[in-house]
Protein backbone atom coordinates (compact mmCIF):
# COMPACT_ATOMS: atom_id res chain seq x y z
CA UNK A 1 0.00 0.00 0.00
CA UNK A 2 1.59 3.20 -1.16
CA UNK A 3 0.96 6.30 0.90
CA UNK A 4 -0.99 9.08 -0.84
CA UNK A 5 0.61 12.49 -1.05
CA UNK A 6 -1.79 13.96 1.51
CA UNK A 7 -0.55 11.54 4.18
CA UNK A 8 3.07 12.30 3.35
CA UNK A 9 2.25 16.00 3.69
CA UNK A 10 0.79 15.32 7.12
CA UNK A 11 3.95 13.46 8.10
CA UNK A 12 6.04 16.36 6.83
CA UNK A 13 4.07 18.98 8.73
CA UNK A 14 4.13 16.89 11.89
CA UNK A 15 7.91 16.56 11.59
CA UNK A 16 8.14 20.25 12.56
CA UNK A 17 6.97 19.23 16.03
CA UNK A 18 9.45 16.36 16.37
CA UNK A 19 11.10 17.77 19.49
CA UNK A 20 8.00 18.97 21.36
CA UNK A 21 8.43 16.33 24.08
CA UNK A 22 12.23 16.07 24.02
CA UNK A 23 13.46 14.34 27.17
CA UNK A 24 16.66 12.82 28.52
CA UNK A 25 15.25 9.29 28.56
CA UNK A 26 14.43 8.68 24.91
CA UNK A 27 14.82 12.15 23.48
CA UNK A 28 12.62 12.34 20.36
CA UNK A 29 10.88 8.94 20.61
CA UNK A 30 7.38 10.30 21.22
CA UNK A 31 7.99 12.89 18.51
CA UNK A 32 8.92 10.18 16.03
CA UNK A 33 5.70 8.31 16.78
CA UNK A 34 3.77 11.56 16.46
CA UNK A 35 5.25 12.14 13.00
CA UNK A 36 4.79 8.53 11.86
CA UNK A 37 1.22 8.38 13.14
CA UNK A 38 -0.73 9.51 10.05
CA UNK A 39 0.94 6.72 8.06
CA UNK A 40 0.73 4.14 10.82
CA UNK A 41 -3.01 4.63 11.14
CA UNK A 42 -3.27 3.58 7.49
CA UNK A 43 -0.89 0.67 7.81
CA UNK A 44 -2.21 -0.87 10.99
CA UNK A 45 -5.17 -1.01 13.34
CA UNK A 46 -6.00 -2.56 16.67
CA UNK A 47 -3.36 -4.81 18.17
CA UNK A 48 -1.00 -4.37 15.22
CA UNK A 49 -1.04 -0.60 15.71
CA UNK A 50 -0.32 -1.01 19.41
CA UNK A 51 2.58 -3.32 18.58
CA UNK A 52 3.98 -0.82 16.09
CA UNK A 53 3.85 1.96 18.70
CA UNK A 54 5.63 -0.25 21.19
CA UNK A 55 8.35 -1.09 18.70
CA UNK A 56 9.04 2.57 18.03
CA UNK A 57 8.83 3.85 21.60
CA UNK A 58 12.58 3.59 22.06
CA UNK A 59 15.58 5.92 22.09
CA UNK A 60 15.58 8.18 19.04
CA UNK A 61 17.56 11.37 18.56
CA UNK A 62 18.75 12.93 15.36
CA UNK A 63 19.04 16.30 13.69
CA UNK A 64 15.51 17.70 13.41
CA UNK A 65 15.93 18.77 9.76
CA UNK A 66 17.35 15.45 8.58
CA UNK A 67 14.87 13.46 10.67
CA UNK A 68 12.46 13.31 7.72
CA UNK A 69 15.08 11.26 5.86
CA UNK A 70 14.97 8.64 8.60
CA UNK A 71 11.18 8.93 8.92
CA UNK A 72 10.68 8.40 5.17
CA UNK A 73 12.94 5.36 5.13
CA UNK A 74 11.22 3.90 8.19
CA UNK A 75 7.85 4.24 6.46
CA UNK A 76 9.21 2.43 3.42
CA UNK A 77 10.68 -0.36 5.56
CA UNK A 78 7.39 -0.77 7.45
CA UNK A 79 5.64 -1.08 4.11
CA UNK A 80 8.12 -3.66 2.86
CA UNK A 81 7.80 -5.64 6.10
CA UNK A 82 4.06 -5.92 5.49
CA UNK A 83 4.83 -7.43 2.10
CA UNK A 84 7.08 -9.94 3.77
CA UNK A 85 10.33 -8.46 2.43
CA UNK A 86 13.17 -9.10 4.88
CA UNK A 87 16.04 -6.61 4.54
CA UNK A 88 18.31 -8.62 6.87
CA UNK A 89 18.04 -6.24 9.81
CA UNK A 90 15.22 -5.00 12.02
CA UNK A 91 13.73 -1.54 11.61
CA UNK A 92 14.96 -0.76 15.09
CA UNK A 93 18.53 -1.59 14.08
CA UNK A 94 18.14 0.55 10.98
CA UNK A 95 16.95 3.51 13.03
CA UNK A 96 19.75 3.27 15.55
CA UNK A 97 22.26 3.09 12.70
CA UNK A 98 20.81 6.17 11.02
CA UNK A 99 20.31 8.57 13.89
CA UNK A 100 23.89 9.30 14.92
CA UNK A 101 25.36 9.90 11.44
CA UNK A 102 22.36 12.03 10.44
CA UNK A 103 22.75 13.98 13.66
CA UNK A 104 26.44 14.48 12.97
CA UNK A 105 25.88 15.65 9.38
CA UNK A 106 23.03 17.96 10.38
CA UNK A 107 24.92 19.45 13.31
CA UNK A 108 27.95 20.13 11.15
CA UNK A 109 26.02 21.51 8.19
CA UNK A 110 23.16 23.43 9.81
CA UNK A 111 24.32 24.38 13.31
CA UNK A 112 28.05 24.51 12.60
CA UNK A 113 28.06 26.14 9.16
CA UNK A 114 24.77 27.34 7.64
CA UNK A 115 23.45 29.18 10.67
CA UNK A 116 26.60 31.21 11.43
CA UNK A 117 27.06 31.99 7.71
CA UNK A 118 23.49 33.31 7.48
CA UNK A 119 23.98 35.20 10.75
CA UNK A 120 27.18 36.96 9.67
CA UNK A 121 25.72 37.87 6.25
CA UNK A 122 22.73 39.30 8.11
CA UNK A 123 24.99 41.19 10.52
CA UNK A 124 26.83 42.93 7.67
CA UNK A 125 23.50 44.65 7.02
CA UNK A 126 21.99 44.77 10.49
CA UNK A 127 25.11 46.26 12.08
CA UNK A 128 24.45 49.62 10.46
CA UNK A 129 20.73 49.40 11.13
CA UNK A 130 19.30 47.86 7.96
CA UNK A 131 16.22 45.69 8.37
CA UNK A 132 17.40 43.59 5.43
CA UNK A 133 19.62 41.79 7.94
CA UNK A 134 16.97 39.75 9.76
CA UNK A 135 14.99 39.17 6.54
CA UNK A 136 18.09 37.88 4.79
CA UNK A 137 18.91 35.63 7.72
CA UNK A 138 15.52 33.93 7.73
CA UNK A 139 15.50 33.42 3.95
CA UNK A 140 19.11 32.28 3.64
CA UNK A 141 18.85 29.81 6.50
CA UNK A 142 15.44 28.38 5.75
CA UNK A 143 15.98 27.66 2.05
CA UNK A 144 18.29 24.67 2.73
CA UNK A 145 16.24 23.86 5.85
CA UNK A 146 13.06 23.32 3.84
CA UNK A 147 14.86 21.71 0.91
CA UNK A 148 16.38 19.02 3.09
CA UNK A 149 13.18 18.39 5.03
CA UNK A 150 11.20 17.84 1.82
CA UNK A 151 13.90 16.04 -0.16
CA UNK A 152 14.69 13.87 2.85
CA UNK A 153 11.15 12.61 3.10
CA UNK A 154 10.91 12.03 -0.66
CA UNK A 155 14.25 10.23 -0.95
CA UNK A 156 13.73 8.35 2.29
CA UNK A 157 10.27 7.10 1.40
CA UNK A 158 11.28 6.44 -2.18
CA UNK A 159 14.47 4.59 -1.39
CA UNK A 160 14.07 2.83 1.93
CA UNK A 161 17.46 1.54 2.97
CA UNK A 162 18.98 2.94 -0.25
CA UNK A 163 18.66 6.39 1.30
CA UNK A 164 22.07 5.64 2.80
CA UNK A 165 23.67 6.26 -0.57
CA UNK A 166 21.63 9.46 -1.01
CA UNK A 167 23.04 10.72 2.27
CA UNK A 168 26.50 9.77 1.14
CA UNK A 169 26.01 11.63 -2.16
CA UNK A 170 24.93 14.82 -0.42
CA UNK A 171 28.44 15.12 1.12
CA UNK A 172 27.00 17.29 3.87
CA UNK A 173 30.06 17.09 6.09
CA UNK A 174 32.34 18.22 3.25
CA UNK A 175 29.97 21.08 2.41
CA UNK A 176 30.11 22.02 6.05
CA UNK A 177 33.87 22.47 5.76
CA UNK A 178 33.59 24.67 2.63
CA UNK A 179 30.86 26.74 4.26
CA UNK A 180 33.00 27.15 7.35
CA UNK A 181 35.82 28.48 5.20
CA UNK A 182 33.35 30.94 3.71
CA UNK A 183 32.33 31.77 7.27
CA UNK A 184 35.92 32.62 8.20
CA UNK A 185 36.11 34.97 5.19
CA UNK A 186 32.81 36.61 6.17
CA UNK A 187 34.01 37.00 9.75
CA UNK A 188 37.11 38.75 8.42
CA UNK A 189 34.95 41.18 6.46
CA UNK A 190 32.72 41.79 9.45
CA UNK A 191 35.78 42.43 11.62
CA UNK A 192 36.89 45.01 9.02
CA UNK A 193 33.48 46.71 9.25
CA UNK A 194 33.81 46.89 13.03
CA UNK A 195 37.38 48.19 12.74
CA UNK A 196 36.29 50.90 10.32
CA UNK A 197 33.36 51.88 12.55
CA UNK A 198 35.74 52.17 15.51
CA UNK A 199 38.15 54.47 13.65
CA UNK A 200 35.22 56.57 12.42
CA UNK A 201 34.06 56.98 15.98
CA UNK A 202 37.50 57.85 17.31
CA UNK A 203 38.25 60.17 14.38
CA UNK A 204 41.40 58.19 13.74
CA UNK A 205 42.88 57.05 10.42
CA UNK A 206 41.32 53.86 9.11
CA UNK A 207 44.68 52.12 9.40
CA UNK A 208 44.07 52.02 13.17
CA UNK A 209 41.28 49.60 12.30
CA UNK A 210 44.00 46.99 11.92
CA UNK A 211 44.10 46.85 15.72
CA UNK A 212 40.82 44.91 15.61
CA UNK A 213 42.64 41.79 14.36
CA UNK A 214 44.99 41.24 17.33
CA UNK A 215 42.08 42.05 19.65
CA UNK A 216 40.01 39.33 18.03
CA UNK A 217 42.84 36.82 18.16
CA UNK A 218 43.28 37.67 21.83
CA UNK A 219 39.58 37.00 22.46
CA UNK A 220 39.89 33.81 20.49
CA UNK A 221 42.79 32.59 22.63
CA UNK A 222 40.82 33.52 25.75
CA UNK A 223 37.78 31.51 24.64
CA UNK A 224 39.97 28.52 23.89
CA UNK A 225 41.07 28.63 27.51
CA UNK A 226 37.38 28.45 28.37
CA UNK A 227 36.89 32.12 29.01
CA UNK A 228 33.18 32.78 29.01
CA UNK A 229 32.05 35.38 26.44
CA UNK A 230 29.62 36.76 29.01
CA UNK A 231 32.35 37.39 31.59
CA UNK A 232 34.66 38.96 29.02
CA UNK A 233 31.87 41.34 27.96
CA UNK A 234 30.91 42.25 31.51
CA UNK A 235 34.46 42.86 32.70
CA UNK A 236 35.56 44.90 29.69
CA UNK A 237 32.32 46.91 29.72
CA UNK A 238 32.86 47.70 33.38
CA UNK A 239 36.41 48.82 32.58
CA UNK A 240 35.09 51.03 29.78
CA UNK A 241 32.42 52.51 32.04
CA UNK A 242 35.00 53.12 34.74
CA UNK A 243 37.34 54.80 32.33
CA UNK A 244 34.70 57.19 31.06
CA UNK A 245 33.55 57.85 34.64
CA UNK A 246 37.06 59.00 35.60
CA UNK A 247 37.57 61.13 32.51
Amino acid sequence: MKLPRSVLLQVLSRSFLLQASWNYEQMQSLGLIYALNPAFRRYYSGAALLAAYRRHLEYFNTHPYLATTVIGAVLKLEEQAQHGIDPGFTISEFKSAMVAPCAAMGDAFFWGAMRPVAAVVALLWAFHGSLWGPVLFIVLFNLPHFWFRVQGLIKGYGGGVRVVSTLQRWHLSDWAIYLKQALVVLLGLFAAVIGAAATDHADAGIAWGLCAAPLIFGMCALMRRRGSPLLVILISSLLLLGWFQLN
Partner: protein
Amino acid sequence: MGIVLVRVDNRLSHGQILEAWVPSLRADCIVVANNQLAEVAFQKVLMAAAVPKGIKVAIGTIEEMVQVLRSEELADHRVLLLFANPQDALQAHHLGVPFNELNLGNLHGGKNKKRLSCTVALNDDDIEQLQALDDDGVKVVLQCVPSDRKRLWCKLT
Protein backbone atom coordinates in the same frame (compact mmCIF):
# COMPACT_ATOMS: atom_id res chain seq x y z
CA MET B 1 51.13 11.76 18.87
CA GLY B 2 48.77 8.94 19.88
CA ILE B 3 45.43 8.91 21.63
CA VAL B 4 44.08 12.28 22.73
CA LEU B 5 40.69 11.17 24.04
CA VAL B 6 39.06 7.87 24.95
CA ARG B 7 35.31 8.15 25.26
CA VAL B 8 32.37 5.91 25.99
CA ASP B 9 29.35 7.05 24.00
CA ASN B 10 26.28 5.04 23.01
CA ARG B 11 26.06 6.99 19.83
CA LEU B 12 29.74 6.55 18.94
CA SER B 13 30.66 9.20 16.37
CA HIS B 14 28.06 11.98 16.23
CA GLY B 15 27.65 15.73 16.40
CA GLN B 16 29.27 16.31 19.77
CA ILE B 17 32.33 14.40 18.64
CA LEU B 18 32.69 16.01 15.23
CA GLU B 19 31.59 19.54 16.09
CA ALA B 20 32.96 19.95 19.58
CA TRP B 21 35.65 17.43 20.46
CA VAL B 22 37.52 17.12 17.16
CA PRO B 23 38.13 20.89 16.77
CA SER B 24 38.87 21.41 20.43
CA LEU B 25 41.45 18.59 20.62
CA ARG B 26 42.70 19.12 17.06
CA ALA B 27 42.14 15.40 16.48
CA ASP B 28 42.65 14.14 12.93
CA CYS B 29 41.66 10.51 13.32
CA ILE B 30 38.58 8.82 14.75
CA VAL B 31 38.76 5.18 15.75
CA VAL B 32 35.44 3.46 16.43
CA ALA B 33 35.78 0.10 18.15
CA ASN B 34 32.50 -1.77 18.22
CA ASN B 35 31.76 -5.39 17.41
CA GLN B 36 28.10 -4.96 16.37
CA LEU B 37 28.82 -2.00 14.12
CA ALA B 38 31.61 -3.83 12.32
CA GLU B 39 29.14 -6.45 11.09
CA VAL B 40 26.69 -4.21 9.24
CA ALA B 41 28.04 -2.69 6.02
CA PHE B 42 25.61 0.21 5.60
CA GLN B 43 26.17 1.28 9.16
CA LYS B 44 29.91 1.63 8.59
CA VAL B 45 29.28 3.53 5.36
CA LEU B 46 26.96 5.96 7.14
CA MET B 47 29.27 6.60 10.04
CA ALA B 48 32.19 7.26 7.71
CA ALA B 49 30.04 9.54 5.52
CA ALA B 50 29.39 11.83 8.46
CA VAL B 51 33.10 12.51 8.94
CA PRO B 52 34.49 15.30 6.75
CA LYS B 53 37.44 14.58 4.54
CA GLY B 54 40.78 15.34 6.09
CA ILE B 55 39.91 13.29 9.12
CA LYS B 56 40.86 9.64 9.03
CA VAL B 57 38.27 7.11 10.17
CA ALA B 58 38.80 3.52 11.25
CA ILE B 59 35.80 1.38 12.18
CA GLY B 60 36.05 -2.25 13.25
CA THR B 61 35.81 -4.82 15.99
CA ILE B 62 37.59 -4.16 19.26
CA GLU B 63 40.36 -6.63 18.50
CA GLU B 64 40.95 -5.20 15.03
CA MET B 65 41.15 -1.69 16.40
CA VAL B 66 43.53 -2.73 19.15
CA GLN B 67 45.79 -4.05 16.38
CA VAL B 68 45.48 -0.81 14.42
CA LEU B 69 46.30 1.25 17.49
CA ARG B 70 49.35 -0.89 18.21
CA SER B 71 50.72 -0.56 14.70
CA GLU B 72 52.76 2.41 13.50
CA GLU B 73 49.99 3.41 11.09
CA LEU B 74 48.45 5.99 13.40
CA ALA B 75 51.69 7.03 15.12
CA ASP B 76 51.61 10.66 13.97
CA HIS B 77 47.85 11.13 14.21
CA ARG B 78 45.91 12.62 17.08
CA VAL B 79 43.47 9.80 17.72
CA LEU B 80 40.01 9.99 19.25
CA LEU B 81 38.98 6.51 20.40
CA LEU B 82 35.29 5.68 20.81
CA PHE B 83 33.52 2.81 22.55
CA ALA B 84 29.79 2.19 22.87
CA ASN B 85 29.87 0.92 26.46
CA PRO B 86 32.17 0.53 29.47
CA GLN B 87 32.55 -3.19 28.81
CA ASP B 88 34.24 -2.57 25.44
CA ALA B 89 36.52 0.02 27.00
CA LEU B 90 37.53 -2.43 29.70
CA GLN B 91 38.19 -5.15 27.13
CA ALA B 92 40.38 -2.84 25.06
CA HIS B 93 42.24 -1.75 28.16
CA HIS B 94 42.91 -5.38 29.03
CA LEU B 95 44.08 -6.00 25.47
CA GLY B 96 46.70 -3.36 26.00
CA VAL B 97 45.37 -0.04 24.71
CA PRO B 98 47.13 2.51 26.91
CA PHE B 99 44.94 5.22 28.40
CA ASN B 100 44.74 6.72 31.85
CA GLU B 101 41.59 8.78 31.47
CA LEU B 102 38.18 7.64 30.26
CA ASN B 103 35.52 10.14 29.27
CA LEU B 104 31.86 9.24 29.76
CA GLY B 105 29.78 11.04 27.13
CA ASN B 106 26.31 9.74 26.45
CA LEU B 107 25.05 6.58 28.11
CA HIS B 108 21.33 6.94 27.87
CA GLY B 109 18.83 5.81 30.44
CA GLY B 110 16.71 2.71 30.71
CA LYS B 111 15.28 0.23 33.18
CA ASN B 112 17.40 -0.47 36.28
CA LYS B 113 19.81 2.29 35.44
CA LYS B 114 21.19 4.78 37.88
CA ARG B 115 21.39 8.32 36.59
CA LEU B 116 24.70 10.08 37.26
CA SER B 117 24.01 13.17 35.19
CA CYS B 118 21.68 14.33 32.46
CA THR B 119 23.48 12.31 29.84
CA VAL B 120 24.95 9.40 31.76
CA ALA B 121 22.99 6.51 33.28
CA LEU B 122 24.63 3.28 34.43
CA ASN B 123 23.44 -0.19 35.40
CA ASP B 124 25.22 -2.45 37.90
CA ASP B 125 27.38 -4.11 35.24
CA ASP B 126 28.55 -0.74 33.93
CA ILE B 127 29.49 0.37 37.42
CA GLU B 128 31.41 -2.83 38.04
CA GLN B 129 33.38 -2.46 34.80
CA LEU B 130 34.14 1.20 35.43
CA GLN B 131 35.26 0.28 38.93
CA ALA B 132 37.62 -2.29 37.40
CA LEU B 133 39.04 0.41 35.12
CA ASP B 134 39.28 2.78 38.07
CA ASP B 135 41.22 0.12 40.02
CA ASP B 136 43.59 -0.16 37.06
CA GLY B 137 44.42 3.50 37.54
CA VAL B 138 42.14 4.93 34.85
CA LYS B 139 40.54 8.22 35.80
CA VAL B 140 36.86 8.01 34.84
CA VAL B 141 35.37 11.44 34.19
CA LEU B 142 32.05 12.85 32.99
CA GLN B 143 32.29 15.59 30.41
CA CYS B 144 29.75 15.80 27.64
CA VAL B 145 31.39 18.54 25.54
CA PRO B 146 34.70 20.38 26.04
CA SER B 147 32.96 23.48 27.41
CA ASP B 148 31.47 21.43 30.27
CA ARG B 149 33.35 21.02 33.50
CA LYS B 150 35.07 17.68 34.07
CA ARG B 151 33.60 15.72 36.95
CA LEU B 152 34.99 12.56 38.52
CA TRP B 153 32.47 9.73 38.34
CA CYS B 154 33.08 8.44 41.86
CA LYS B 155 31.90 11.74 43.29
CA LEU B 156 28.53 11.17 41.62
CA THR B 157 27.82 7.54 42.42
